[in-house]
Each structure stands twice: as C-alpha cells, then as structure tokens.
C-alpha cells in the first residue's frame, strides 16, 4: 500500500489542478459581484460541449480550441451579466437571495437544454496529449503522470498567475479590486462599475468554459456533469473563504489530495462523503474558511 503513496500525492496535486481551474473564476466572480453562481458547473459543461463539437467538425486537436471557447463564452457571459445585475440591484425583495434563486434557475435551464440538444451520453474530447504519460520507477515506488493531467495543472497555474497579474499589475485589476472592496466608493472614484462587473463575469464564464475543454479531455463530458462540478467549486471556495482568491489554490490542492487518498486507500464511493465531512468540520471550526479570510 505504501508504494502507492507518491502516486496518491501526485494524483492529488493533478486533481487539485482541476479543482483550481473550476473554482478560481468562480471565486473571483463571488469576490467582485457577490453572487453565488449555481450555474458554474453548467458553464463548464457547455464549454466542454462546444470544444467537442468544434473538434468533431474540424478534426483538429481539442487543445487548439481553448482560445475560441474562451472568446465565445466571454461574449455569452458579457450578455448574461446585465440580467444578473438587474436581479441583484432590484429595489425590492432580498437581492442576494433572489440572485441565488435566479442562477439556480439558470443552471436548471442550461442542464435541461444540454440534455435536450446533446443527449445523455458520455463523450471524450480527443487530444494528442491523452495518449502520452510519464512513468518512473524508483525502488519500490512507481509513478505515472498522464500528460493531459499535467497540462491541466499547468493550465491551472497559468490561469492563476495570469489572474494575479491582471489584478495586481493592471488598471483594470485595480478597478476590479476597488469594486470588490467597496462598490459605491469605487463608483465615486470614477470606476465604471457596470462595465467592471461585466468584464469580471465574462472572464469567469470564459475561464470556466475553457476548463470544460480540459475536463472533457482529462475525464469525460456529459450533459449531467454540471452539478458535481458546481459542488466541487463550492467546496473549494468555502474552504478557501468566499472571495479570498489567494486561498483558492491551497484549498484546491487539499481537496485533490483528500480525494486521491480516498480513491486509492479507501472506498471510492465514499469520496464525496469524505469531502463533505471535511467541509462540515471546517465550517464548524471556522465558518470563514481555512484562512479565516472569507466574507
């Protein structure tokens, strides 16, 4: 059993990379727009299907379509955001709760539409990377690193670094951080809140859709995969503390490690329960996440 330990760690880190990509855009969107998007998993699913159809149509490698998927869904996000804005800025009712219910409805609609249009079968995205893997043997230990998972991790880190650069070094990032900190004050300082919100939302939707392409290549895709992905995005973001971006990578890797250890050393069907138990305990001890930095 112990010989599998390095493999478990590596699997955990690679899995953590996937969770990182699933949740980083989501965390950003929460931090700035203060809405929980129940449709995060559905955006990922739709992105994966766009990738699938593009590859089937052209016959090229799925990875080549990442920019196209990003652009398409960024545009979709740009036009969806005003609707959410309308719900959250409504004078009546409880805007935050209503936004939750609204995205919940959005998620149901997407899932239903996907099941209608794409069917219920499981597909896989063809990519050259899927064939390759690295293999080491070191004494009693052996490790396999599938290239496509490694690519997923690299993509996750690249997105994280890119977002960090955007937020910390550019004027747009300054505006986003200002809006996240205090919307009204940022507006008084001349930040266009509407536009910043729309940019953040379209960034988030685009990143999520690109993630879908990776998940389709690494695991598989089907029209019903949305809720589980949303669930993991929520887990990560709650662990990290809602809206606390630097906590997201650590929480993702922790979650990936928990899951890979469970898969290898215990019963795979108990994985989700184990993850939920961890979440439960952490919420008990510190409701604002691992780092006590959530809002």
């Amino acid at each position, binding site marked *: 059993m112990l010989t599998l330990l390095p493999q478990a760690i590596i699997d955990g880190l690679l899995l953590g990379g996937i969770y990182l990509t699933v949740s980083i855009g989501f965390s950003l969107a929460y931090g700035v727009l203060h809405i929980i998007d129940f449709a995060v998993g559905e955006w990922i699913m739709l992105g994966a299907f766009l990738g699938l159809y593009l590859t089937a149509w052209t016959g090229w490698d799925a990875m080549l379509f990442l920019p196209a998927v990003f652009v398409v869904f960024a545009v979709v996000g740009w036009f969806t955001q005003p609707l959410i804005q309308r*719900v959250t800025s409504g004078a009546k009712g409880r805007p935050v709760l209503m936004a939750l219910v*609204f995205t919940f409805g959005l998620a149901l609609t997407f899932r*239903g539409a996907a099941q*209608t249009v794409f069917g219920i079968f499981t597909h896989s995205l063809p990519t050259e990377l899927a064939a390759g893997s690295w293999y080491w043997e070191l004494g009693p230990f052996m490790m396999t690193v599938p290239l496509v998972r490694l690519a997923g991790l690299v993509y996750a880190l690249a997105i994280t670094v890119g977002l960090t650069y955007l937020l910390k070094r550019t004027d747009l990032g300054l505006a986003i951080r200002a809006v996240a900190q205090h919307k009204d004050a940022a507006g008084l300082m001349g930040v266009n809140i509407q536009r910043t919100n729309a940019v953040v939302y379209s960034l988030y939707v685009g990143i999520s859709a690109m993630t879908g392409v990776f998940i389709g290549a690494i695991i598989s895709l089907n029209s019903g995969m949305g809720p589980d992905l949303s669930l993991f995005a929520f887990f990560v973001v*709650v662990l990290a503390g809602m809206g606390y971006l630097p906590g997201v990578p650590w929480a993702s890797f922790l979650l990936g490690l928990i899951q890979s250890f469970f898969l290898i050393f215990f019963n795979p069907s108990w994985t989700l329960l184990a993850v*939920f138990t961890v979440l439960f305990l952490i919420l008990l001890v510190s409701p604002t996440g691992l780092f006590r930095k959530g809002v």
Partner: protein
Amino acid sequence: MPDTVWKKCVVVAGLAVFLLSFPLLVRDAFLLRLFTEALMWIGLAITWDLIAGYIGYLNFGHGVFFGFGAYTTTILFTKANLPFALSLAIGGGVAALAALIIGWPVLRLRGAYFAIATWAFGRAIMQLALVLDVTGGPDGMRLPPFLNPHFFAYVMLALVGATYIVLWVLLERAPFGLKLKAIREDESGSLAIGLNPAKLKLQALVLSAAPAGLIGGVYAYWITFIDPSSVFGDLVTDQAVVMAVFGGLGTLIGPAIGAVFFLTFKTYFWAYLSDFQVLYLIILGVAIAACVVFLPDGIWGAVTRRQEGRRALRKGLSLNQRAAAPPAHPSAAGTSVRPSVRPRDGEEE
C-alpha cells in the same frame, strides 16, 4: 373589520368542506392521485418557505428531510415489521433529528454559505443512500402495496392540513413568526433586541423538517417504491423551490397556490408532452429565473399588492372627500391589513 373576517370564515369553511368531501365525491383514480400529490407538494412548498420566506435562508437540501422520512419509514416498516403509523412517526422524528444535527453548524452560516452547505449536504446524503446496504443502494426499496387511494388522500390531507394550521398559528398569529421575520430583516439587529437567532433558526429548521419527513413516509407507502434519486434527488427540492417562488415567498398561501398551479401544469405536461421529458427541466429553470426577474413577490404578492394599492387609493379618496385632519398618506393603506400578514414591510433599503 367584521366584514372581512366574515368573508374569510366563509372562504375557509368552503375550502375545508371542499377538501374533505373531494376524495369521497371523486371516483376518478387519476383525479384522486392528483389531489394527493397536490397536497404533498403544498406541504413541501410551505415547509421550504418557512425557512426561505420567513427567515431568508435558502435551504437547497430540503429534499433530504423528505428522503430521511421516506427511507426511515420504509426500513422500519419492511425490515423491522413495525406498524406503519409507528414507522411514520419515527420517520418524522429522524427527519427532525437530522435537521437538528445538520442545522447546528450549518445555520451559523449566512446567505450564500448556507445555501451551498445545504445543497452539498443533500448531495452527500444521496451518495450515502446509494452506497449503503440497508437502503438497497441504487436499486431502491419496495413496500407492500396498499391499494386504497382514499386512505392516502385523507392521511395526506390530515398531515398537510395539520402542518398548515400549525405553521399558520405559529407564523401569522404567534410572536414566533415576527421573531423569524426580524431575523430575516436584520439578523444582527434581532440579536441586539434580545432575540436568540441561533435558537430560533434551529427551531424553525426542525419545524420545517419534521412535516417534510412525515410527508416522505406517506409518499413512500403510497408510491410503494423509493430509490435515492426519487426521494433524495434534486428534483424534490427544485420543484418545491419553483412552487414557493412562483406562488410568493414569505406567505403560507402563496406557496400553496404555487404548488397547485405548478403541479397541474406538470401533470398535463407529462400527460401530453412526455416525449419531451427533458424539456421539463428547461421549463422548470426558466420558470424560476423568470419569476425572480418579473414576479419577485410571486403570484400572491402581485395580487395582494394590487389590492393594497386599490384600497389605499379608495381610502385616500374618501379621506380627501371628508377633508379629515390627517392627510392621505400612501403608507396609511397598510393599517387595514394586519402588519404580520404583509410579507414585505420595511425593505426599501
């Protein structure tokens, strides 16, 4: 205002007579089934609304309590050979206990955290029901059929009727409802005026879970087959959410109207368009989203708003005509309605 009280009494009595005599008069098994199912959804929608509409917490794991009741009742009834009534009572108790255990940590979370935690909890429990042996895993469980639709119609009627009355007394007549609304309006504020939000929220969650569990138990015996996706699945919660949001949050009558309306639609949809099953999910989703955007107060909210507006207008006119001392102020309209009945006071922030 004795006139409106009189009117209300007539309406309530008429409704009671209708509900009690409906199963006796109707010989059509389909209509009776629809009746029972409508009652079931009314029960689920109002218990969901107790948390969502009155405290402002979105419980996306409401189906869990329904499922707990269904599974506990089934296991005790079929495996331990307990009588049905006892199994049902224990099923409700288990649901309440689950609410207590889960609510203690989860209710400390606010807003979105709470919605996520309950949703995750629901999915985790469904996973648990899929892997355990005692629940039969994905194969589900069977109950001995008891083919008496009238029995189930009356049991469901008694259960949901009792739930409705208890909730109405507690929420609209007793201070309990006002306390919950205080938490909804401002949780820290309610703490400051000496309420104990943690305790109140837990009481409310247990109060919403127990009837859901009982309804689940009756449902299991009525349908005679349960599996994890039918009782723990998202669809149970989703439909309760649609009904409550569509009917109007923060009232009891709203979700009940929403439940009847939506169930009728659903039944006819399945009857005539069952080739397009997946469309149902789209319609459900669009209905939720559109309600939030266009009808944030639900049907009931829109109707009462309009009446309130008319009453205000009439009152204002009569005041002007009499040239009474107090000027006709729009907010004076509210005095004709009990403050506790109006769901959305003081939210013009």
